């Protein structure tokens, strides 16, 4: 049991960091503008294909080199989505922004399916594996976790050590007060949406180095992001990282004791339970 448990748990925790980054994107957008981004999953899938195209189609760019490029494209893409689809409904009831972002997701999936079909793709990056004591992990998974921690730290420094980050936190806290202080709130909102999108594509890019994927794969990670976001408190990016670890840990633990198909039962059961008992998350959202 134990020799099964430890490697499985380590694998789960490592992927949990990547889930955390994906969820940070979702929760950042919610925290700043109270919008649940239903295009989150397809955007994660776009990140996967971004890395795939740069690596496999001629350029042969190493996925870790192309990650910043994909991330930068993600920021721009997010700003475009915000300006076209979200800005007009930012003050409307929740249903409007939910449906607007869902419409974006339909457009991405529609165009994606017609261009890429729904076939399964693999990046095909093999860096071997390392053994530390009793545990053997693949290098891609280890690097993915490392990059995730690095990205999370970067986001923290950006939000808490730069003046733009301060503006984002101010707008999240109280938009009208921030506007009175001369903060250009529309631009800050657009940038925040861009950052959320960037986190999603980076998470997608990292996942693509570990698992096979297709254009519809994002949906599963979107649902995981919801679970993690609620675990860590919606609107609390650092809580999302911890939530990601919890979810990854569960995904590592549960299959040791019962069939893998029970994992989603526990994940969504926990999700609904947390929403009922503590809607602000395990750690309380920092508003």
């Amino acid at each position, binding site marked *: 049991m134990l020799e099964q448990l430890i490697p499985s748990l380590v694998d789960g925790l490592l992927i949990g960091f990547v889930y955390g980054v994906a969820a940070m994107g979702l929760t950042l957008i919610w925290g700043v503008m109270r919008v649940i981004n239903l295009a989150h999953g397809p955007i994660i899938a776009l990140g996967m294909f971004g890395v795939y195209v740069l690596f496999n189609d001629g350029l042969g760019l190493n996925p870790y080199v192309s990650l910043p490029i994909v991330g930068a494209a993600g920021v721009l893409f997010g700003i475009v989505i915000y300006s076209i689809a979200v800005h*007009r409904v930012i003050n409307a009831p929740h249903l409007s922004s939910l449906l607007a972002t869902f419409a974006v997701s339909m457009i991405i999936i529609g165009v994606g399916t017609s261009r890429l079909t729904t076939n399964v793709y693999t990046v095909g990056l093999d860096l071997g594996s390392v053994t530390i004591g009793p545990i053997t992990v693949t290098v891609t998974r280890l690097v993915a976790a490392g990059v995730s921690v690095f990205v999370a730290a970067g986001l923290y420094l950006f939000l808490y050590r730069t003046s733009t980050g301060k503006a984002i936190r101010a707008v999240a806290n109280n938009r009208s007060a921030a506007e009175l202080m001369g903060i250009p709130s529309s631009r800050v909102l657009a940038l925040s949406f861009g950052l959320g999108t960037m986190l999603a594509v980076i998470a997608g890019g990292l996942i693509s180095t570990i698992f096979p994927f297709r254009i519809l794969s994002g949906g599963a990670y979107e649902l995981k992001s919801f679970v993690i976001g609620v675990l860590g408190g919606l609107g609390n990016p650092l809580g999302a990282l911890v939530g990601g670890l919890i979810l990854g840990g569960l995904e590592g633990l549960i299959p040791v004791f019962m069939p893998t198909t029970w994992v989603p039962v526990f994940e*969504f059961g926990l999700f*609904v339970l947390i929403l009922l008992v503590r809607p602000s998350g395990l750690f309380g959202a920092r508003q």
Partner: protein
Amino acid sequence: MNLLRQPGFWLTVLLVLAGGLLAPITQSATVRESMFLVLMFVALASSLNIILGYTGYVSFGHIVFFGLGGYVGFYFLSQQSWSLAPAALMGGLAAALLALLLGLSILRLRGAYFALATIGINEAMRALITNLKIFGGPTGMSLHFSVYQEYGGATQALWITYFAMFGLALVVVVLSFVVKKSKFGLGLVSIREDEDAAMVMGVRAPRAKTWSFVLSAVIPGIIGTLFFFKNGNIEPGDAFRLHLSIETIVMVMLGGQGTVLGPVLGAAGYERLRGFLLTNPTFKDLQLAFAGLALLIIVLFVPAGVVGWLRTRLPRLRRVLE
């Protein structure tokens, strides 16, 4: 009765009647199949409208009632050899019970938190049913073809399900009219506008919300049984398809949330639009993207839907367009 003197009531009911009678008049299987889907969406969208449009709670995973009702009804049909009507009632009952239980708990959540919780419940239910042996696990259950003999052959069974669906669509439309005009419905609308103020004015919000949730869940549960009876088999992926849930919301939005006529027009319009996009050679590959574009345009520019837009533009029509 007061209701029968309302032109808006007659307009909606006649519209559904005309659509539903199209199939028996033409006796054509093609018309029957396409109208079956239209009537199903009319009933689903109008049911959803009670919680979404009247009460203002965004039930994003509303399809869970369709799926659970389908599963429970199908269980009685295939494993206990019940006939269609009692099995369908069991489906509706199961959905209502789930809604009652959920209503007592998750309706405390407001706004996006409620929407997220309903998504979670749908996914949890799908995952749970995938693991339940008595419901056939991941492969689901199927009906033996001989079951249809009981109803006088497969064709006859298809007509029976069609008329049952037709009847249900009429029931839902009448129900949403009755609710809208009742004191109970007025309470729901006041909860939508301002829940705290409604409570101060004496609306028992938790109770009213729970009943509106139950009302909006019963018919989808019955429809689930009918749909999967006609389908012949049921799988977790088909029963709890989140996408279908969102499509139903789109229909309500398209026609106009909170109106009786809106979901009927929205469901019919969306079904036709999708059929057109799927068969048209220019749009076929990109049908999902075009549907998304249409949705985006509606959400951004006509958020009140067709009926809502007409009601603001042409105040004289308000008596007719309820």
